[in-house]
């Protein structure tokens, strides 16, 4: 059972939550018992059921605590199955959430939703999917952050040691635009059926924009696009260039995806191409090599042949590719962090939509 605060009014309750460090700095919906109970009811799960432990506080992430975070974030009950799956994902020991929260690097859990849940929960996958204005995206991602604050104990300067952070640490959730994609969706490539719904969580930097103009020669267009994506995946200041560890995410806009498909590519060949192209020589890296740094250690272990290719991805499989965003000139890459005992990989969890119940719509009832 979660601890209860009392306050004489809704406004006073909100101020108490702010003062107690329970918010992300923005106003929240006050998680009254009735609101939380409704959210738990929507899950079809026992409120005391554990979804895992969340570091660095190693708090027990029960369904009830996830529901509190979802209410505070502004979720509808319909969103809660996605929140439950995403909480399970961030609690997975492979996510190393203790280290993710404690690192000085700027990263946060990117939540990618696939399958029927995208439509069922109203999750945006098109224009501005990672920006403001999409309630499901905004509130689901925010619920995960609030769980990381209140269950995991991640607070800036004492347990969340990110030197700067990034705006995706408020909320960082989108759906894949499966209809616009010329390929099977992300979760199918990870072994799930297209009729299943999943969340795939990878802790990454924020999105880095990648510009590529179209070309009336399909082969040239694909070549330019692969080259600029590879360059963006191997920035000299990016952790993965130094460590070559962790999951990186590539979000292709539908135009770029179709251009690559028209040139005969699928996600497997794109991953292989980008693995091969996202690299530097030791000669190039010498400009950013500091004693004791990741590059220094890689060079000591791999040898210092000046012509040796130093890959920025650990393998082609370490790149997740999905299609999302509006049509146009820009795609995006999200570089990895690359540290932690498990190496900053991704975790996919199935969303159980069948367990959920319909709850009368009354989100602000007390």
């Amino acid at each position, binding site marked *: 059972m979660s601890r209860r605060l009392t306050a004489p009014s809704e406004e006073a309750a909100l101020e108490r939550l702010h003062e107690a460090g329970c918010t992300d700095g923005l106003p929240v919906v006050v998680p009254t018992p009735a609101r939380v109970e409704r959210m738990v009811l929507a899950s079809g799960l026992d409120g005391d059921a554990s979804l895992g432990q969340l570091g660095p506080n190693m708090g027990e992430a029960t369904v009830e605590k996830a529901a509190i975070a979802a209410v505070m974030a502004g979720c509808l009950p319909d969103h809660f199955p996605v929140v439950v799956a995403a909480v399970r994902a961030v609690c997975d020991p492979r996510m190393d959430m203790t280290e993710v929260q404690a690192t000085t690097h700027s990263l946060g859990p990117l939540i990618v939703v696939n399958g029927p849940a995208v439509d069922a929960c109203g999750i945006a996958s098109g224009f501005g999917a990672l920006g403001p204005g999409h309630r499901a995206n905004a509130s689901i991602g925010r619920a995960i952050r609030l769980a990381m604050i209140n269950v995991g104990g991640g607070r800036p300067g004492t*347990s969340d040691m990110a030197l700067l952070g990034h705006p995706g640490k408020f909320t960082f959730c989108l759906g894949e635009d499966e209809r616009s994609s010329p390929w099977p969706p992300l979760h199918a490539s990870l072994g799930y059926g297209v009729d299943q719904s999943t969340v795939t969580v990878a802790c990454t930097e924020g999105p880095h924009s990648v510009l590529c103009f179209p070309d009336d020669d399909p082969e040239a267009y694909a070549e330019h696009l692969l080259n600029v994506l590879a360059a963006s995946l191997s920035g000299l200041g990016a952790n993965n260039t130094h460590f070559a560890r962790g999951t990186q995410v590539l979000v292709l806009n539908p135009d770029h995806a179709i251009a690559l498909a028209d040139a005969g590519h699928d996600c497997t060949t794109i991953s292989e191409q980008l693995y091969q192209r996202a690299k530097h020589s030791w000669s190039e890296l010498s400009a950013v090599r500091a004693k004791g740094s990741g590059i220094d250690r890689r060079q000591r272990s791999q040898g210092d042949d000046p012509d040796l290719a130093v890959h920025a991805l650990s393998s082609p499989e370490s790149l997740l590719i999905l299609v999302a965003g509006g049509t146009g000139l820009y795609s995006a890459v999200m570089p990895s962090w690359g540290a932690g005992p498990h190496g900053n990989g991704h975790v996919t969890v199935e969303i159980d939509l069948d367990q959920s119940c319909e709850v009368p719509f009354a989100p602000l009832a007390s």
Partner: protein
Amino acid sequence: MRDAISAARRHIPAVALVTAKFSPQGDFVSRSAGMPDIPRVILPHPVAGTGEKAMKMVADDIAGEVLWALGAAG
């Protein structure tokens, strides 16, 4: 901090080395891991990247404190 706590739980004498700017985080982790009194020695910040000479000076400065924290002194 967690490494030191893990070692202490195995009855291996342990002391955590924490730089000054991470001292509040060390306090948080030790509390959340259930061992708030794990011995710790505070180092100047930063240590990483300061070079071998500077690190040896830090080591010389804290060696006595580390031994004391491990119970070797007295």
